């Protein structure tokens, strides 16, 4: 049971309610499943996160970016040492990776790419809603989206009554919110009114001022909300800084710092979701991967194919799921980037079908305009 602002304020009667008879309901049959998306803006380098082992060409092209102390996954792939939690979960069949994958976008522009990774469309800026928002709407799951960012991310748009958590630098008094709410009562301003309703019904813990730059606190709160059986079913995190044109480094460079942030969020979610982690899927999302070859600043340029990092109890098993295209010059996209052999939208569509209890065919039509996206649920997830 979560303490909301309302029942906190009416504390007396709540106590009374708790002390009275509480009907026993079994939740086991209707366990809520959580879907968490972490957006990695700037272009996450799949070959740094999940490096292919023993590829001579890669070693040659990335002399200064080669990782030592790679964590072992299988005979073909390793894992960046900063992604410790994924390695730990891998042992328990709770981490997996899709490799050589991307949205069907090859333009190498951050803005177009990020727009498309969120809308799931083919033409930048054409669609005004996100694939996740449309998936929730099609599944009739309303008011269950939680964004960990200031504006409502495009990814979640398309379904009403989403909440977001990105607290202001200081506390806003309940009294003030209530007073403004009262003034809006007689107004015909449905959007602001319903948003004020959302604000007033937010759990007290979401009202407390914190440092929005502190991703740890944000993740902690998200875990708390997601754990609640009546809380959000979807959460969206936003990370940036993956655009490492310089000093990308290996074990300890700029890209490693960003991966460490991902690791931190997943660690906190894992620790604090408790049992709910078994009914959770965490997936990353990025606009493109990076070039194979290092550039003059020991960084990499915008590329194409990347990887999806996955964690959670709803994964079928630990695996690197890939149709590996190879890294020889002619196997690369335009001779420079890891190719994409799996449309990453197929992964997201399948994940939504699992978490929202929906037919993937139905979602594919409702969310992705019937694009050819194979159902990967059987291969990747527990169904």
């Amino acid at each position, binding site marked *: 049971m979560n303490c909301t602002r309302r029942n906190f304020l009416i504390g007396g009667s709540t106590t009374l309610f708790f002390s009275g008879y509480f009907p026993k309901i079994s939740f086991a049959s209707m366990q809520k499943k959580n879907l968490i998306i972490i957006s990695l803006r700037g272009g996450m380098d799949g070959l740094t996160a999940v490096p292919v082992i023993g590829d001579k060409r890669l070693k040659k092209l990335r002399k200064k970016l080669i990782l030592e102390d790679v964590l072992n996954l299988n005979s073909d792939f390793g894992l960046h040492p900063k992604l410790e939690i994924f390695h730990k979960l891998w042992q328990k069949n709770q981490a997996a990776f899709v490799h050589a994958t991307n949205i069907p976008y090859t333009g190498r522009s951050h803005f177009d790419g990020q727009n498309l990774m969120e809308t799931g469309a083919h033409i930048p800026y054409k669609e005004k809603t996100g694939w996740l928002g449309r998936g929730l709407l099609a599944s009739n799951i309303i008011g269950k989206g939680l964004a960990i960012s200031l504006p409502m991310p495009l990814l979640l748009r398309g379904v009403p009554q989403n909440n977001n958590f990105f607290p202001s630098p200081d506390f806003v008094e309940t009294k*003030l919110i209530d007073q403004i709410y009262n003034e809006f009562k007689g107004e015909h301003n449905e959007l602001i009114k319903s948003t004020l309703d959302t604000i007033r019904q937010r759990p007290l813990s979401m009202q407390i001022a914190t440092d929005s730059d502190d991703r740890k606190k944000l993740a902690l709160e998200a875990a708390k909300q997601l754990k609640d059986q009546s809380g959000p079913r979807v959460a969206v995190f936003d990370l940036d800084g993956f655009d490492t044109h310089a000093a990308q480094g290996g074990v300890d460079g700029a890209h490693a710092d960003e991966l460490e942030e991902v690791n931190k969020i997943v660690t906190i979610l894992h620790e604090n979701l408790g049992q709910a982690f078994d009914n959770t899927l965490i997936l990353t999302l990025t606009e493109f991967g990076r070039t194979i070859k290092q550039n003059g600043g020991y960084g990499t340029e915008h590329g194409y194919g990347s990887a999806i990092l996955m964690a959670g109890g709803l994964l079928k098993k630990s695996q690197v799921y890939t149709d590996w295209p190879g890294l020889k010059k002619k196997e690369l996209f335009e001779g420079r980037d890891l190719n994409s052999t799996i449309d990453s939208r197929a992964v997201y569509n399948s994940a939504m079908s699992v978490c929202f209890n929906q037919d993937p065919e139905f979602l594919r039509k409702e969310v992705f305009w019937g694009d050819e996206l194979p159902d990967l649920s059987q291969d990747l997830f527990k169904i």
Partner: protein
Amino acid sequence: MSLNFYRRVAFGLSPNEKPYKDPLNWAINQLDRIPDLLWPGTIPTEKDLRKKYGEWVYGDREVLRKKFKNDKHAYRKAKDELRIKTGERYFELNEHAIRHFQTKYSKQPVFERFWLFWGNHFAISEKDFLAEFSTGPYQREIIRPNMVKTFEEMVQSVTTSWCMIHHLDNSESFGPNSKKGMEWGETINENHARELLELHTVSPNAGYTQEDVIQLAYIMTGWAHKWDRKNLETGDIWFDQEMHQKGDKIVLGVKYKNDAKRELAKVIHDLATHPICIKFVSTKLCRHFITDEPTEEMIDPVIEAWNKSNGSLIEIHKAVITQAYKYNEITHKFHPPEIWLMQLSRMFDLNIPLSFEKMNYTFKSKPNNRQRQLSWILREIGHSPYRAKQPNGWSDLEVDWVSPELLLRRFWFASVELPMLVKSGNRSHGFILSCLKNNFEDHKNMASLIDNFRFGTSDYDLGQKYGVICNLPGVLKI
């Protein structure tokens, strides 16, 4: 006429202004000439700032990255020093001060609202170091002088400005049959051509095809920054014939004969005077000043003024204001956070921006917290003007500005930050009441909501008062 008209088309009335006898004329008379920039501090030129931009990228990319390629800590330290030296952390703060000083004190606040509108129509989104060095001067030197010319002239200036060309990658667009395109095996970058059609002129309503985009990109090839080893991409814009696609081009059914640099002006003329462009931009203007979904009835007189005057922005602006006046009592408009902040600053004479003496920068250390304050507030309320996320600029729709946290940020600003920005002579209850009276019909009702705190002048008391009155339905939305 309701007092909210002063907020609909401007920023409300400051304490030393009184409601005007003829508000429509008051507004319309502000549009014929360009008001001077009032900021008494430094106003650097676009060219100066581009030079700083060059020093910064050259220093970072060509010097530091190479020097410290194996030591990210030393690299970061050296980079921070370079930031200070080149003003990389300072100029955007200064631009925000110039902008907010203008909207607060301008005698032509209606003109300033149009300035904000056009700067956002031809938006420069967050990319590379544009917000740090270029977007501000672009607003001052490209957008502003064109506001008394024609829309077509504005599009010409914007399209060939360094800032827009860099923003939309036209320097990387090579005609595949041009000399350099053939030599280097390069081809077009469609980015700028697509946005010129989609965002700046005709919009997708014109039904252009991918082939139209490609053909327009061909026409635009060659308009690029002059690259050299020292200035890198920060050189002036010129027309490089060796990048230009040869041959005739066809855009939206119109043939443009092979005519080198003259092709661009011709196609812009056709795009900027296209009926669909006129309707698209007129609708956007009405959306900004009247309501989110303006009707044809509201828009038509603006289109008419446009046609009659051959796209004179002065006449177009006057028509928009006339319509805003006409529909003032029966339409509503939700203002995005920055305009709300500007209105509060003008109506309550807040200490925004910081005085120019205190904004002075010595390039020896990081800008201090006071200097960063305005930009920090803008970021915290979710509307950093020169950092739109996408080339389509900041949204003008209520739905994009109403999320739980975005509303809470406004409550936070008004109740926690704003009291610290109230001038020492303005802390009395009487001052608030007179500002309310100056700007709101229902000032008595508003006053009754804060009456409990009438004796209080502490930051806390002021927070209680401003927290409520700045977020009332009639303040968030006129």
